[in-house]
């Protein structure tokens, strides 16, 4: 079955007011429901949340020299906040899950098919 990444992009300087504790709790419950459904449908593979992009470090090697720079690779207002890796029969099934995740977290979800998935090195 094909794998898809459901990537949650957030905007750095979002002008939206911070969520109240109540709203945070409601959102968390919605996410948990979607995740439970992903699991019971056999679609769940993996999920991850990332720290903010200002915690990132970029390493590049040029002529044998290691150059290390502070900050994310791409200076952009939008950044990847977290993602799910799911298994779905086709794009429609993946889009349906993405809609549920987007509704739960209140952010747009980018759906991208995996070109390959390896569980072992060289797989």
């Amino acid at each position, binding site marked *: 079955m*094909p794998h898809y990444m459901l990537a949650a992009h957030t905007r750095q300087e979002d002008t939206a007011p911070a969520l109240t504790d109540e709203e945070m709790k409601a959102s968390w419950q919605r996410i948990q429901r979607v995740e439970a459904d992903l699991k019971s449908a056999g679609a769940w593979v993996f999920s991850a949340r990332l720290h903010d992009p200002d915690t990132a470090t970029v390493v590049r090697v040029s002529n044998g020299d290691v150059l290390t720079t502070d900050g994310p690779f791409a200076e952009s207002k939008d950044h990847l906040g977290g993602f799910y890796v799911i298994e779905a029969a*086709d*794009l*429609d099934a993946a889009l349906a899950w993405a809609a549920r995740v987007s509704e739960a977290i209140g952010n747009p979800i980018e759906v991208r*098919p995996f*070109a390959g998935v390896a569980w072992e090195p060289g797989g």
Partner: protein
Amino acid sequence: MADEARANGAPSPIDSSEVGRIFREESGRSIATLIRRFGDIDVAEDAVQDAFAIALERWPVDGLPPNPGGWVTTTARNRAIDRLRRAARERELLGQASVMGPEPFDRDAPEEVGPVQDDRLRLIFTCCHPALAVEAQVALTLRLLGGLSTSEVASAFLVPEPTMEKRLVRAKHKIRAARVPYRIPEDHELPARLPPVLAVVYLIYNAGLNGRAQSALCGEAIRLATVLAELMPDEGEVAGLLALLLLIEARRAARTAPDGSLVLLADQDRSRWDRGLIAEGHAIVRACLRRNRPGPYQIQAAINAVHADASTFQETDWAQIVALYDQLLAMTPTPVVALNRAVAVGEVAGPAAALALVEDLELDGYHPFHATRADLLWRVGRRAEAGIEFQRAAETAQTEAEREFLRLGGRWGARSP
């Protein structure tokens, strides 16, 4: 194959342009069937292209096969199997695992042709999947269902052929990589999935209507709408779209003067309207009214039916048209609909009333807005402002015929030199 044709009756002679025409009509169905069978658009396209080459060679000599559509599908299917077997053998020779699996295709199995038209429906929903950009949807639909060549699609939309080629390749790659499904949406999905399909067909029609040399697109759009209406007889909006296209098509010949300039509805020679198409359109509109599940395409068809009913512009039942636009505006509250409604109001309540409705619309740069405003300003006697507005309309017009018409002051310029 040729023997079969002879056995089934005397072949009639046929030249290569006729082969091309018939092939184009049949290719959409064959491609759709082969995509279902082989699960790959490129395999299907290449195979149907192979079959076309064979038809060009054989049909002029052997005559048209008794069932050209079945012939195309069967021939293309056999070519696809040959190609895939060759590719599988090559992979074996290279020591790679066969992706296609062991001999999955039975050459002697009877091919499903004829009643299994649903493949074309699957294909149009794949081509018009909302995960694809509208330009890609239109291009894929014309290429795969309309049987147009890439260069024909490119020239229809005034883009260079390599650009169109890239667009098609990218769209097909996305369909394959992201697994855009090849299936007819279920009933509960249709409200989201049908509108882009109808929009693409309507867009194809309008591209044909507005480009003088591209009237083939009008015929293609009507053909697609007819197929959709046959395959989805319960969808009022599909019927509505077909009726709308037939009623606009009925007036197409009267829209252009012999010198190629544009003729407004008010000035058209109504004896040049195609009564057969109007009757067809009317019958569908009546069926829609009986069904009583109105939608935007059905209402636009009804508006065009009212126009078709009037033997002169003055006899048009404008009150009825305003009432239909009221309904349309409630359903799709867009400035373009509001503009069209204002034009109808102008015919009932006079140009001043229409101008008041038009002034607040945010349609700067949309040439029908400027043309309408210019026309209304002229009619209320604000001639200087009308002149400026006609210039603005001419600047924003899309086709040379329209630019010329507007530069001369629209219908007023033509009448008062």
